[in-house]
């Protein structure tokens, strides 16, 4: 028993799910991601300065945007809410640093590294494939790398972040990861692959 406690088993939501085959894109769970939910007022200069002091970067103020600095990345969620990403191993310490730096400033720092499952999707046709799950216009001009948005995906709430043109990260609640995984398999089969716009050959 003592081994259970000294080297505890770390088990993410999809640890027991086999990687799906036959999809038009690659998908895997990112297990090494630390996540901190940060609340504060963008209008509060003290807050912004204190955060920058810890993270080394300004918090993004533009809706649906992200900034990265070293191994830290911050996703905009709301005018008073951000998701700070860091290596999982750093999350506890980083949350503590933020909490300390923000002492006395109206804010909230919550380590939520285990709350969401991060799915990394890679493929050339993701925008179209994911459109089978969300009404958000992923083809819109402003939807470029760096784009962040909460959205409805299939029947659950999710967060999308475009990392590179062909790499998307989908954040879903841990309890719903299994469902989303199944949904991706259902919509992503290569037989159902669909190319939107572009040259077509008549049926």
């Amino acid at each position, binding site marked *: 028993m003592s081994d259970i406690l000294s080297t505890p*088993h770390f088990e993410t939501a999809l640890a027991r799910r086999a990687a799906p085959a036959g999809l038009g894109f690659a998908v895997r769970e990112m297990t090494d991601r630390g996540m901190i939910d940060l609340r504060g007022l963008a209008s509060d200069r003290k807050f912004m300065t204190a955060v920058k002091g810890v993270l080394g970067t300004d918090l993004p103020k533009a809706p649906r945007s992200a900034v990265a600095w070293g191994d830290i990345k911050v996703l905009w969620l709301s005018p008073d809410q951000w998701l700070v990403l860091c290596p999982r191993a750093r999350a506890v310490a980083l949350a503590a640093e933020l909490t300390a730096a923000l002492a006395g400033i109206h804010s909230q720092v919550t380590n939520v590294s285990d709350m969401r499952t991060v799915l990394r999707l890679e493929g050339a046709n993701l925008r179209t494939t994911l459109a089978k799950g969300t009404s958000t216009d992923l083809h819109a001009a402003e939807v470029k790398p760096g784009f962040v948005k909460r959205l409805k995906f299939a029947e659950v709430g999710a967060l999308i972040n475009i990392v590179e043109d062909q790499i998307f990260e989908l954040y879903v609640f841990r309890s719903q990861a299994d469902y989303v995984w199944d949904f991706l398999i259902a919509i992503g089969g290569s037989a159902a692959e669909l190319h939107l716009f572009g040259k077509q050959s008549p049926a």
Partner: protein
Amino acid sequence: MSKPRRLSSGGSRIDRSSRVSFTFDGKLMSGYRGDTLAAAVMANGQRLFGRSYKYHRPRGVIGLGSEEMNALVGVGTGARHEPNARATQVELFEGLAAVSQNRFPSLSFDVGAINNTLSRLFPGGFYYKTFMWPKVFWKHIYEPVIRKAAGLGVAPEGRDPDSYEQIHVHADVVVVGGGVAGLAAAEAAAVMGARVIIADENAVLGGISDLEDGTIDGAPQAEWARAAAQKLYDAENVHVLTRATVVGHWHHNYVMIAERVGDHDPAIPKSGAPRHRLWKVRAKQVILATGALERPIAFANNDRPGIMLATAVRAMVQRYGVAPGEQGVVFTNNDDAYLTALALKEAGIAVQVVDSRARADGALPERARAAGIAISTGSVISAVKGKLGVEAVKIASYRKGQGRVVSERSAPCDFIAVSGGFNPAAHLWCHNGGKLTFDEGLQSYRPGSHADAIVAVGAAKGTMALADIMAEARAAGEAAAKVALPKAKAAKLAKLAISEDARKPLEAIWFAPATGKYNEGNKHFVDFQHDVTVADLELAQREGYESIEHTKRYTTFGMATDQGKVGNLNGLGAIAEATGKTIPEVGFTTFRPPYTPTSFGAITGSLTKKLFLPVRQTPVFDWHMMKGAVFEPVGQWRRPYTYPRDGEDKHVSIAREILNVRNNVGVLDASTLGKIEVKGPDAGAFLDRIYTNMMSTLKPGRCRYGLTLNELGFIMDDGVVVRFDDERFLVHTTSGGADRIAAWLEEWLQTEWTDYRVFVTPVTEQWAQFAVAGPRARDVIAALKPSFDVSHEALPHMSFVEGTLGALPVRVYRISFSGELSYEIATPANHGRALWDALLQAGAPHGILPYGTEALHVLRAEKGYIVVGDETDGTTTPDDVGLSGLVSKKKADFIGKRSLEQAHLKAPNRKQLVGLYTENPEEVLPDGAHAVAEVKDKPPMKTIGHVTSSYLSPTLGRSIAMALIENGRARMGDVLSFPLDGKVVRATVVDPVFYDKEGARLNV
């Protein structure tokens, strides 16, 4: 009747080198790739496709495509059967199995046809006048017979093996319809750089351009269409959809397209592609280029197999190389149908024209005359001979407005092509409130004004001359692109040289007279599928069902699967003539989605089976599965209800789990409990508004049970609030309430108390949380190398500590829902499984066992603790359940406080929570059983309250129940009666705390 009718040449759509065999009603037939089922069956010499709805009259193909309302067939077998498919739209494939519908025992001999013989008894709406006597006959005889006769096809058997999906798309311009108008509009918009989606319900673009005359740049218009289509396929910014019906138009230009991906080739769905795909398109601009639908002219017995619309006859010959018969009559009131006569003549089929107009001297009639086709002007078809087909017609002379014909002559023929003009397909225009105007030239309604960003072009707008269509469509495409992309440059498309034989005006004729009057037994059908005749419509007017909406509902006119696409205007025209009104005065019925019937599969998309709704899983869900837990849905979660061991009955396993908690120790997966962190200088004040009790006075490190009410004063949720430090609280909610309460807190902060400095972050899923409950709970924790003191003194009841168990970070709350010594231990979710395993391992020597929600419920009932949703139901106040002690008297305000003052919420005879002991300790009152004021021999009996929870308590070795009883607290010791089917159970009112009233077991 089975003489093959395939012409030796012709057929632009078929591939004569590729034979396809299929069956119709079990009969093996053959056709060509490219055929529709309608064409192929007719090519095999069969015209009879089905039976009508009410009179079971024999029916054949009428139309060209999706407007077909007669030739409805069942396609496919077993679980892949689709009823009511339109034979004109079904594309032929090898092995296709189709069956006719609504006939017994066979298509050509159908006993239901007796209805036709008796039809004189069955005018429109006859059933409202009869079947009332004797009363009992309705349920047992009349209705069962009516129901059996009703309906068309049969449902499939079993679950659909195919899959479906949906996709959301955003486009600058959506063009509906791929005829020349749609193609031209799409091209113009695309050239300007707009993202264009063009959808057509047919397999091939081009609309009816291949059936029409008229040239563009010297070539037939169909060739221009082919080239234009190719350009769209090639364009980077255009998506072309075929076999894709735009089924609806909703608010803010939400356009829905149902694409039949795999109906024409069963290999496609079998490969894993969806059978249908539903496109949900947000369009900045919509261009309707849906063309026009040909309408018939009603005449006596105008429903016989072999009577088709003129364009449909043309398509049979020109697209499929199928002769509709050997000798035909074209019956028309317009010039366009002369193209059909010419096509027939060219194919070597004998034809004459009957034109209701006094003169037919347009370019097309002249061409027909020149070709040697006989034309009878000022004439109508007044009668049809033949039952299962056409054998001859009577042709009579006619002057507009003539009520009955006087002289008629017989003409042999075996098919009729009829055209009464064209109605713009304005259905989609109306779905979201577009207005129609009546066009005297067309004698039809066409699009008028619309509040949305939508325009109609081409025949859909009522524009019929090719040159006008092209100019209008291009301009609309450009204008749409311009609005969507204000910076785009003009399209500057090369001018088109267009020539076309000019059409002379049509002359309205809705139904042709016969020798008798139309309402004297002649059947002039206007709604073929539902067997509604002109006489039925006229009867409805006379009986007072004058509003067109009444007429529709009284006669079922336009309510069939085609929704009146073909015949509705004839009906309106006939009503106008019968009542002396104009057609606009008659009005029209509301157009509603979908444009054509759409599979429920497509509307469901991929959300079937486990994808229908998520099952939320806790971090130890796999363990529960592995242990064979029986699950209970709680919101979207599935929680273990109990863990039966091999062969164990549920009751046995639940009792075992309960006793183990009371005697040893149990562990429960409580991860689903809602958890919300609330922080800020005003957090305490804020929670004071939310909870009935005081939260601002809670000491750091301590826990307090709280109640939340809605503004009506009724209990909404409950849970333990923990204070971490001055500014930080953790709020627990019920599993089902987690999201609701988080949203509730945000709402009040954002909308009411906007000056409170408080942040709220839901963290339910961050934590796996397990309750370790039982007299040996402390021993289990102690065995896990806690970094903190677990003694009663250091960690008393209702306190909290954060630390580690071994290497696992944990938050430990000493709270209890079982009445035993109990700890709820939370660890980050990805460590959940490790903690769970560790607890089971460390607890093994102490007899630890997992317990499920049912054991939990019994344990808490033994203690008299309420469950929100069981003891409360949305009309329950804190006092009702004995919790008035939790309602602060000191606070000026909290949510729900003022409502608690309303008279009825303080009324003296409210139901109050009590415990119950049945007289027979083994008798378990059923959930929801009601007590009565007085037992009577039979109902009604006045009830005074009901059982909210009821269990066999293994701890007490007897049944216990909780109940809400009028004035219950004043009835302690009274015996109440619960009449149940055939017996009365009696129970004594007792205190709802059944076990350990002093709470001694908690404080150890």
